[in-house]
């Protein structure tokens, strides 16, 4: 009996020493004690979702874009601090007439396989995007381009069928990144993007559903990156992702939800960076369905929603702006804060009575089943109850929700909008232009005078003039309660303390060109 007991004790001891041995070896790399060993320059990013693909031509989701930004580059880029559009692969541009964009390219840039980057690559990429057979999800970004010329190696001429004032912001969009024609012709760069771009990192491996690995491009034209390897690890469960950052299995993540924020902020090994972001979360209306076709009803809803109180529940992850075009977008002006609607239940009730609904009415609020919107929906429901609007929630899975809203079946809905280019036009055209009905104009907003204004924000080539139109549009759409903006996101980046140099932007994007580990 004693022997058996001794055996059991020894087995348990051995087993625990095996695992504690594992534990101590793994935690060696995670602690911050000074060591003479050089730090492995491998950075692991945790993402809730996997990329759809790794070709800019065939993707349109943020998980893919995060990878694309390492591998490929655009002709122009948005300055992360000022929001100004500045040249990247391009050197400069001129407009000999409003329908012609002559873009001069930088010389001595090479694709990752050593092929020179020339105007032919730009022509090839844009023509492929515009080909309907390609079915590029973001072809509309350069839909107005009807002819592309490459008169010499470093000049590209884009001819447009109509004036297109937002050409530069469009050319800064990740999905208009330039691909290496040789790589694209050799294979499917949407699955294997080896040497397909000019960016700081070379695609190495994709295990779908698990991770994507990039390695440094030693010949990168802006200087060799400090990181040797970047891993985009898919971790669908947020609690697990946060734990991985805490115990050092991963190095950084973005979009930390409110319930996990304090946990990471209080961890001495983690730094949380928070920026005013550009995504806007809002309550929308179907303008084709009564009673929300009535301005007074929309105003009543806007007055009835206490946005300050809701933002108070977000643990610092939201901020208020009354306008449709938020503070981090081109087209915003502080003047908009003098417009819009503050919380005023009495006024809301008065407006409902004036609209012919003194006893309120019943309405259905459609919502996609994401955590953020599922939290907003009952709040909106409870607040509208105060003015006798009896709201029934219609909760749908995301794909069904998209189809439901595109078909205009909803009465009210909750949604959000995040701009890639940081330009207000990228919000107005998809959301409120009449020809976007049946696609992204879920409000089914259709007013000829507003269409005209939206088109001016698209076609005006003079940027100062264009911004004036955007500001005017912001006031008009806000006064018309095209949406009730609930809050704008404060975007977050949580990284291990020894990770430095990540360029983080207000639309949750990051660049790792200068990132490294201490």
């Amino acid at each position, binding site marked *: 009996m004693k022997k058996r007991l001794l055996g059991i004790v020894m087995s348990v001891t051995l087993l625990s020493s095996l695992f504690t041995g594992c534990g101590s070896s793994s935690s060696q790399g995670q602690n911050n004690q000074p060591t003479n060993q050089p730090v492995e320059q491998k950075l692991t990013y945790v993402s809730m979702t996997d990329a759809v693909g790794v070709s800019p031509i065939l993707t349109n989701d943020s998980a893919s874009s995060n990878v694309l930004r390492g591998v490929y580059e655009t002709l122009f880029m948005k300055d992360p601090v000022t929001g100004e559009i500045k040249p990247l692969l391009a050197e400069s541009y001129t407009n000999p007439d409003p329908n012609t964009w002559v873009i001069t390219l930088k010389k001595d840039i090479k694709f990752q396989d050593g092929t020179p980057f020339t105007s032919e690559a730009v022509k090839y990429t844009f023509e492929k995007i515009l080909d309907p057979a390609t079915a590029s999800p973001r072809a509309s970004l350069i839909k107005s381009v009807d002819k592309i010329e490459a008169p010499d190696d470093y000049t590209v001429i884009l001819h447009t069928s109509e004036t297109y004032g937002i050409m530069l912001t469009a050319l800064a969009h990740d999905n208009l990144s330039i691909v290496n024609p040789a790589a694209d012709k050799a294979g499917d760069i949407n699955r294997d993007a080896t040497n397909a771009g000019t960016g700081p990192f070379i695609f190495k491996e994709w295990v779908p559903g698990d991770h994507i690995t990039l390695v440094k491009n030693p010949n990168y034209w802006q200087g060799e990156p400090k990181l040797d390897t970047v891993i985009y690890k898919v971790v669908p469960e947020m609690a697990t992702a946060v734990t991985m950052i805490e115990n050092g299995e991963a190095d950084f993540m973005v979009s930390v939800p409110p319930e996990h924020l304090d946990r990471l902020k209080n961890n001495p090994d983690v730094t949380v960076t928070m920026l005013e972001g550009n995504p806007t979360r809002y309550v929308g209306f179907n303008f084709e369905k009564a009673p929300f076709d009535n301005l007074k009803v929309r105003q009543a809803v806007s007055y009835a929603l206490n946005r300050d109180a809701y933002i108070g529940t977000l643990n610092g992850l939201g901020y208020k702006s009354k306008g449709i075009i938020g503070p981090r977008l081109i087209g915003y002006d502080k003047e908009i804060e003098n417009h819009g609607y503050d919380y005023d239940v009495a006024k809301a009730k008065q407006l409902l009575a004036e609209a012919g609904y003194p006893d309120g009415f019943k309405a259905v609020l459609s919502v996609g089943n994401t955590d953020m919107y599922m939290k907003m929906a009952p709040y909106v429901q409870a607040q509208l109850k105060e003015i006798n609007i009896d709201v029934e929630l219609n909760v749908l899975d995301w*794909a069904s929700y998209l189809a439901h809203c595109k078909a205009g079946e909803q009465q009210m809905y909750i949604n959000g909008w995040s701009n890639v280019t940081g330009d207000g036009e990228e919000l107005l055209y998809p959301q409120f232009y009449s020809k976007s009905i049946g696609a992204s104009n879920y409000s089914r907003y259709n007013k000829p005078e507003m269409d005209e204004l939206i088109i001016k924000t698209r076609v005006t080539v003079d940027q100062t003039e264009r911004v004036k139109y955007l500001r005017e549009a912001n006031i008009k759409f806000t006064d018309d309660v095209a949406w009730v903006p609930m809050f704008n996101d404060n975007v977050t980046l949580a990284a291990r303390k020894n990770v430095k140099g990540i360029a983080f932007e207000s639309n949750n994007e990051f660049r790792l060109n200068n990132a490294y580990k201490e």
Partner: protein
Amino acid sequence: MLNYIIKRLIQLIPVLIGVSIVVFLMIYLIPGDAAEIIGGPAATADEVANIRIKLGLDRPMHEQYLRYMSGVLKGDLGFSFQTGQPVSEAIKTRYVNTFKLAVFSAVVAAIIGVCAGIIAAVKQNSWFDYLCMSVATLGISAPTFWIGLMLIIVFCVKFKIFTISGFTGQIWTKEGLKGMVLPAVTLGFNSAAMIARMTRSSVLEIIHQDYIHTARAKGLSEKIVVLKHALKNSLIPIVTVIGVNFGSLLGGTVVVESVFAINGIGRLMVQAINARDFPMVQGAVLIVATTFVLVNLITDIIYAAIDPRISYK
């Protein structure tokens, strides 16, 4: 026996055809399609229409189904709508991960469940019996994701014994074990609890039979009496539970795969359903259904092996 196995395998064909039709109809009857998901919220109607044509979603429903099934008969499960990856390739990697996880957790669950059940039965109404059955009740009632997260907090954050970033190596290596133990325990906890309860009641039923008293009266040791006479005759319901649980382990790994970042077939199916990626959903369901049927067949064969009274003609 061989005829029986062949007959059962032939029965698999109508099952799979039925499953494929049901899955196809379910995916097509729910709103939303892959083109809208790929296009995203900013896509124009033209962009979505072009994607739809490219994927063949503009074709009539029966044509899409027949085209898909003709591919399946030639061994081609098609390509993912969303990523363009061959479905067979995508499923293979994930299936191996899920299968490893299910086998490992089934083994863990069977060992723990059967041992705990036998001891609880032999020492009926002792503190060990109460402890085992209390833990078993917890195992059956506690949500899997909660157990997983608790284990992560204790063993990955507090003591840093295991890792949580998926399978990082072969199971027989230290790295592999570090990634496998917690998900397997989490997944197997519920099964172990059910097996323990079933083993206990099954052994208890047998242990009071006359032939067990006879065995004891013959002077056989208690070990022989329990393991050879009581357990062997209690095995049929236990094997049934283990078999059924293994099938549900394969299909029910999605929560564990999400919590432990394991790239398995459960997660693949959820992603594919959300993306309305019909070929991927269809392929994954067919593979899981086939496995389920095969596991049931193996369970039936094991019955014959452990109970000479059962034979198949």
